[in-house]
């Protein structure tokens, strides 16, 4: 798994890639928490364009970060999930709290 962070105007863009499952959940959670502890992050964008597989343990990590960000009034959104990943997100109900956008730029515009 490759994890990439970019902070733009207090919005943290998180780019994930590869197969995301229980084997990556702790690493993802710890990495995200470390960045959220160290930086002033208001909003979160999860770019899932390169994610080929996603299971429920990752959904738990995403929702956990949503809870942290939304507590302070911030937004979390999802960018470009592939169809099989999108289906999982849809079934989970996560789209009810995290808006989906077709690109990082559009997501940034809507969040700001």
């Amino acid at each position, binding site marked *: 798994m490759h994890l990439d962070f970019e902070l733009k105007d207090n919005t943290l863009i998180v780019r994930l890639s590869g197969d995301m*499952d*229980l084997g990556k959940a702790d690493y993802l959670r710890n990495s995200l928490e470390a960045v959220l502890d160290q930086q002033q992050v208001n909003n979160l964008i999860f770019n899932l364009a390169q994610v080929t597989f996603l*299971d*429920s*343990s990752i959904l*738990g990590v995403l929702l956990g970060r949503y809870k942290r960000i939304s507590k302070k009034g911030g937004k979390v959104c999802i960018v470009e999930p592939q169809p*099989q990943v999108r289906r999982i997100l849809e*079934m*989970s109900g996560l789209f009810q709290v995290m808006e989906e956008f077709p690109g990082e730029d559009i997501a940034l515009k809507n969040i700001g």
Partner: protein
Amino acid sequence: MQFINQMKLKFLSIPANVAFARVTVAAFASQLDYTLSDLEEIKVAVSEAVGNSIVHGYDQAPDYYIEIFATLTADTLEIRIKDDGKGIENVEKALQPAFSTDAERLGLGFVFMHSFMDSLKVESQPGNGTLVIMSKRVGASIAQISTEQ
């Protein structure tokens, strides 16, 4: 039903083996004529069951074993995923959507197994491990063409 192939896997209860298990079962299943989308669904179901054995059954202890038995008949894959972990107090409750004994989790594992496979059966008793039996037919999602006249 006559089987055409069988396999048995046994591996340690470590998170890295979730990927190993799903890829192996999907490769085995691809001996039948599943669509790519079917194989994706099988992968999710296997990941969820194996993940549950690791996280809940063995409470993340890495030195226990999980076993998978898979059988192919002409048109069906049956998967049995078994752990010797702590078992489930109330299976009926555990199967309900959004039920989880862990606050960080969504309680969707069984929902995905149920949605993506044609059958799901869970046998478990506290202290006696858990056995998840799932099956999926080939072409189950394709409507049967009626030839009645």
